[in-house]
């Protein structure tokens, strides 16, 4: 990479950091419990809007694998989620009525919170409908993973987004607060993902899955990106560029091996497709705050409503991480 390109990326990184500071003015603190954060704690950062029904399970899931503190940004919820989180001792909560889209889909807010609170911590940036699965997650806490990454001098850990869906109509997958969403949305597409490389930032661009298959079969290039790098040993000089798809400095995006080997990676189980999706789709279409003009919500809303079934006869039923690793969706790398 030439000097100018590299300098251009440096400027861009600085620009996103300045922007994060500017957008931070939209945030107002609801409860700040961050004083209790220990130096080697593993932290979660998340933005949400009207996810009250998912929050209890989300917190439980990440507490169980060993996350110590949650930094949450509430984007104008009115369903009681904010009140619920404000009572949690391990949650620090900010609230904003600012535009999600103009905060670059929440990235600016998260960048600022990470700049202030994430420095020198392992930080996990996930949405409330994303559950992280990593190698050995059934027997080893996430600290085992981060200790190993530290020992291997690895600073970022990739986990591709895997869309989970129920069998049958989404409306029939009635999600109860506190329940495991994977009991309902337990199906996924095992092998229809396509990958290309982003030359500028060095990250991979992964598309595919049920959304590409159902909603974007005619214009695949618009299908959502599934590559994510949610777990990073954060430094205050880092920034996310576009959602958690890519970072700067761009060395952090090299979570894949180019010489034939496999690096360790995980999967983010995306449990968005439940009965809650229909309501969200309506709301988001009205708000127009989502990526690519909310194309997928529109595709859903205008699509054949009688058949919003993402399931097909080749859908795979989720069992555990070992299944995902055998299918080649994630890898243990040289972690054994």
């Amino acid at each position, binding site marked *: 990479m030439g000097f100018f390109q590299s300098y251009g990326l440096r400027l861009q990184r600085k620009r996103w950091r300045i922007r994060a500071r500017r957008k931070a003015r939209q945030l107002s603190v609801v409860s700040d419990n961050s004083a209790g954060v220990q130096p080697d704690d593993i932290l979660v950062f998340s933005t949400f809007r009207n996810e009250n029904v998912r929050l209890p399970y989300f917190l439980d899931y990440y507490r169980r694998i060993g996350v110590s503190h949650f930094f949450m940004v509430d984007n104008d919820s009115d369903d009681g989620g904010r009140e619920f989180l404000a009572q949690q001792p391990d949650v620090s909560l900010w609230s904003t009525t600012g535009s999600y889209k103009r905060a670059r889909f929440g990235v600016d807010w998260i960048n600022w919170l990470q700049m202030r609170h994430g420095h020198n911590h392992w930080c996990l940036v996930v949405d409330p409908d994303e559950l992280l699965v990593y190698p050995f997650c059934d027997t*080893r806490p996430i600290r085992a993973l981060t200790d190993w990454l530290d020992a291997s001098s690895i600073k970022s850990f990739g986990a591709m987004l895997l869309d989970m869906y129920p069998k049958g109509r989404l409306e029939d997958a009635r999600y109860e607060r506190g329940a495991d969403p994977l009991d309902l949305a337990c199906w996924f597409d095992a092998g229809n993902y396509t*990958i290309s490389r982003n030359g500028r930032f060095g990250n991979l661009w992964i598309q595919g899955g049920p959304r590409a298959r159902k909603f974007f079969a005619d214009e695949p290039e618009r299908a959502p990106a599934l*590559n994510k790098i949610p777990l990073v040993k954060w430094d205050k000089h880092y920034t996310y560029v576009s959602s958690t798809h890519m970072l700067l400095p761009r060395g952090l995006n090299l979570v894949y091996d180019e010489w034939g*080997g496999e690096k360790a990676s995980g999967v983010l189980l995306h449990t968005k497709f439940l009965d809650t999706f229909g309501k969200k789709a309506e709301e988001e279409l009205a708000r127009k705050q989502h990526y690519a003009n909310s194309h997928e919500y529109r595709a859903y809303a205008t699509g054949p409503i009688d058949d919003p079934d993402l399931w097909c006869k080749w859908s795979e039923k989720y069992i555990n991480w070992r299944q995902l690793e055998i299918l080649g969706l994630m890898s243990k790398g040289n972690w054994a």
Partner: protein
Amino acid sequence: MTVGIVMLVHTALDRAEQVIRHWVAADCPVVVHVDKTVERAIYDAFVDSLADLPTVLFSTRHRCEWGTWGIVAASQAASELMLRTFPQVRHVYLASGACLPLRPPQELKRYLDARPMTDFIESATTADVPWTVGGLSEERFTLRFPFSWKRHRRLFDRYVSLQRRFKMHRRIPPGLVPHMGSQWWCLTRRTLSAILEDPDRKIYDDYFRKVWIPDESYFQSLTRLYSQHVESRSLTLCKFDFQGKPHIFYDDHLQLLRRSDCFVARKIWPHADRIYEAFLNPDGRSVAEAEPNPGKIDRVFSKAVERRTRGRTGLYMQSRFPNENWENGVTAAPYSVFEGFTELFEDFEAWLSRATGAKVHGHLYAPDRVMFEAGQTTFTGSMSDSSALRDANPRMFLTNLIWNTRGERQCFQFGPMDQQGISWDIAKDPNAQISVISGAWAVPLFQLNRNFAELRAEAAQLQRIESEHLRALRSPYAKARVRIWTMAEFVESPMEALQSVVDQIGTKGPRRLAEVPRMVDLTGFGQFLQNLKNQGMHPYLMGDFPVEPPLKNQPPAPRKPYLVK
């Protein structure tokens, strides 16, 4: 007589304390070396916590940075203290704070009692070992390494290349043959004191001070000078990954560790509560005289290294995306491509599937949709039949298909009427078995009842596309197994050709074909080609077909039979 433990500690002091107590309870004296980077207050608290044990001593603290002399200095100081203070010690065992005894110390003592003169130290000459980090093996003994590899990598590398350029070599002290091996050893008092009290020790120390990673070579080389009986293996189970850093054991390795029968293992993750619980509170299980047998663990870890360095062939995913030519194989398994067969035979796909037991798809790269086997709209791995999705990345469509159906042979049809994006990829893929009947695309045109001018234009285009594709198949870059027949050749002896194709797939063992697919009626095909020629288009890919039907005055002879032998 007993074994004394020299323990190098730098983190997880609470775990170290547990292990120390375990050793002491079995009458093994322990000398502890705590890294100088540990804060004074923490160190003092650690010393206090062990104050109740008279046979635990603390040696002079050194700074132990990976790859530097500090670790050797620490081992020397602690060993000297051990030999001086505890005369009952016959063997000295070097361990770290992350080492955990897997078998009761009594068993280790018995084992060593039975081998009183044996030094257990892995020790091999540099020429014979593959473990080298940073591409340095022999040179770690002949160059100087004043800069830290961890902290000043660039200086380190520059200084190495400078020395190489100017051929600056150090002299190895006379009589010394450099050996390398695991830094975790168990030496006899005899050998260890000979090393430590050697009148030439200063010469050796000065030399090794600037060797790279001296902790893997100092004792390993000097032992060879004094030892009566070197057993070149470490009693400590310690596996290294491809970067030369030790693998770590977690709770889920418990059974594996139990079955290994090794005396000591490293490194244990400090939070692996179940492992510490299990091995520090022995439940009376004893394997008595068993020899250490780390074979199973070896396999687990060497598979991990293999996965990290070579990966799974044919897999493209978020953490494996090889550069071109670094794939170790483009696709996961062999597959077959048939070009021109469905055009020439009426029921080719069904027949092939019966004859070989393979999955036989139609034209996967057909322009309007993907023709999966039996007209399915989705296929294994939830692959879609949308042509747009396929054409967004034709290469990954193929690699996905082959990956998803590992263990089941895939066959598909291809031709000049299909999307050609995949042409070079299959040509370069050693897993592809490509059988071509060139020019067979003319048969459907011949059967169509369409305006001849249109047919002529289409024939010209198809011929151009196919000849382009054949160029790829015949190029020097092609690695696929390719068979190309002109249509005329093929029609001449179809049986032989089909047999060879089916044999190559080889799913059902060598067998003569019991039935053959039905060839379309080619009466008048020669004339059709001649008509194309007459229109100024030159169809050449199908070879030479006789224009005229056999002599007019004879009854129409049955077409040349192709028999099942």
